[in-house]
């Protein structure tokens, strides 16, 4: 396999992430109704890719400078705090590669998931990117147990339409400050 691309995560990218995450709950006004169909098209498609465990196809929808972040509450500045995970593209590939080894015991048997994406709102960010917020519940079934993972998600979409792509994905688990079960599928 080719050597994975170098990380592009730098201080500037962190800063953008912090600014994006900061106004958690701040009033932006209602989302733009005209953006919603295209945003929902992307989010619903993403949900299906993940539920069907088409992880490579999912990864292909992320930009080269993407960040996939699951903060611990409060999100704060990830430069000074640990998160559940904060992945660049290279570590996302690792996460998928881990499942592909066939030796990831925590995914033997694999989780079956069904995710509900709702309360979708979207705003233009000015630089061509689109901010989307939604509420998500991922129902995970594994080993006779059904476990919900509820979160409020933020996305920055770089492209909409047929070729939709994601620059940032932030998953804010509502219970990230309590004791969560380790999950090993992609949220």
């Amino acid at each position, binding site marked *: 396999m080719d050597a994975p691309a170098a990380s592009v995560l730098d201080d500037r990218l962190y800063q953008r992430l912090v600014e994006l995450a900061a106004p958690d709950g701040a009033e932006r006004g209602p989302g733009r109704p005209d953006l919603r169909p295209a945003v929902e098209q992307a989010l619903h498609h993403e949900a299906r890719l993940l539920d069907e465990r088409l992880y490579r196809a999912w990864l292909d929808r992320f930009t080269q400078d993407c960040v996939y972040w699951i903060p611990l509450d409060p999100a704060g500045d990830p430069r000074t705090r*640990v998160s559940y995970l904060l992945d*660049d593209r290279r570590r996302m590939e690792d996460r998928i590669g*881990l499942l592909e080894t066939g030796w990831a015991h925590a995914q033997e048997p694999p989780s079956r998931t069904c995710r509900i994406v709702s309360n979708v709102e979207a705003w233009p960010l000015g630089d061509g990117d689109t901010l989307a917020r939604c509420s998500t519940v991922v129902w995970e079934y594994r080993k006779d147990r059904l476990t919900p993972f509820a979160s409020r998600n933020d996305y920055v979409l770089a492209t909409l339409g047929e070729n939709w792509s994601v620059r940032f994905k932030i998953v804010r688990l509502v219970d990230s400050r309590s*004791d969560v*079960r*380790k999950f090993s599928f992609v949220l």
Partner: protein
Amino acid sequence: MDALDTLIQPHRVHRSLYTDPDIFVTEMEKVFGGAWVYLAHESQLPEPNDFITARIGLRPLILTRDDDGGLHGLFNRCAHRASTVCQSECGSARRFQCSYHGWTYSNRGELVNVPFAEGYPPDFDLSDHGLAQVPRLGTYRGLIFGTLNVDAPSLADWLGPAGPLIDEFVDRSPSGRIEVRNCQRMVYRGNWKLAWDNAGDGLHPTFAHRSFLVLNERQHGGARSLSQFKASPDDTGMYGADLGNGHMFVDQRPGLQQSFWETQRPVPGREWYADRIVESHGDGAAEVLEMAPGSMINLSIFPNLLIKGNHLETVDPVSVGETRLHTWVAAAEGAPEEVNVLRMRIAEDFPSLGNPDDLEIFERCQEGLAIPEVEWVDMSKGLGHPAEEVAADGVRRAPVTHEGPMRGYLRAWLKLMSADAKLTTARAGETSFEKAA
């Protein structure tokens, strides 16, 4: 409960240690009450009047700093009718007022006000009704411990050879101090000792972490994180040790073929942050970068602290079949900011890619332990091996895949479970404090 000493034999352990609710109740009382238990790190309550909550076994606790900076271990239990008086995980407070009937306590634990005071018996004395306290607190290099056991050895003696190893962990920071940041909280459906068995277990990485090993070889090649366990770990010089009093040590450092930094799997931001360090430190950059990856040691301080990577992980039992793991990340105080940014990303790496496999297997063990007729857990590897002899410093060192460290902590467990230690609480002003280092 059978006689305890029949449950632990030289080469095996009875399943009831993991499944019997009566044993669990006793160990929460005697093991966690009788040992020195890790509570928190001083950097988590740096200022006067700061507090943080903790537990000693199942006993809820508020660890406070008074306005003179003194530490107090207050049981989070109103002296009136038992409600907890503090609901926050941490913060700053001079007073704790119980929300049930308004009794109010200082952060030294004294009862300072009882509303509607008329009606209590004439001999009702506020000073008899303060918050009960942990009678003995102590610190070692910023780590705060407490015990209810007035007969326990001094904290320094309790730690013994583990002390200098804590020094090695802390002294990776230029200032000689760590700064504890936030924590990841995980829970698994299994007994707390499954995490403890695992902490001294150099036999499992080759198999339990096969996904991580295979991934690293495929994606990144070379001698990356954990590759020292790929084949024949006992030929690498890595060793495990029973440090006495239940403390265990696994030293992975002799297994490394390259520097910590070169061995570290690439984490997000690796290139940009390393470049900044090279720019600012020139020839000294390699030494600075060595501070970012984990310590490559697993130092387990019985019964509830696992020091590993750059983490202080607490093992917090909930019930006989459920355990919480709180993984606090330590920053290197005095290191360039870039080092600690990298530490945050490194602190997410193995915990999210490797540890789920550990926790899955703990749960599989708990499932297997459910069979009453299959009674024993084997821990015989290395028993009778010449390397298991106790060295002059009281430490047993043996090849890393041996199970001597587990046998060692179970000896300490049995001693605490069988002892008739005097477990007690103290009143405000009656507690003792030891600064061990």
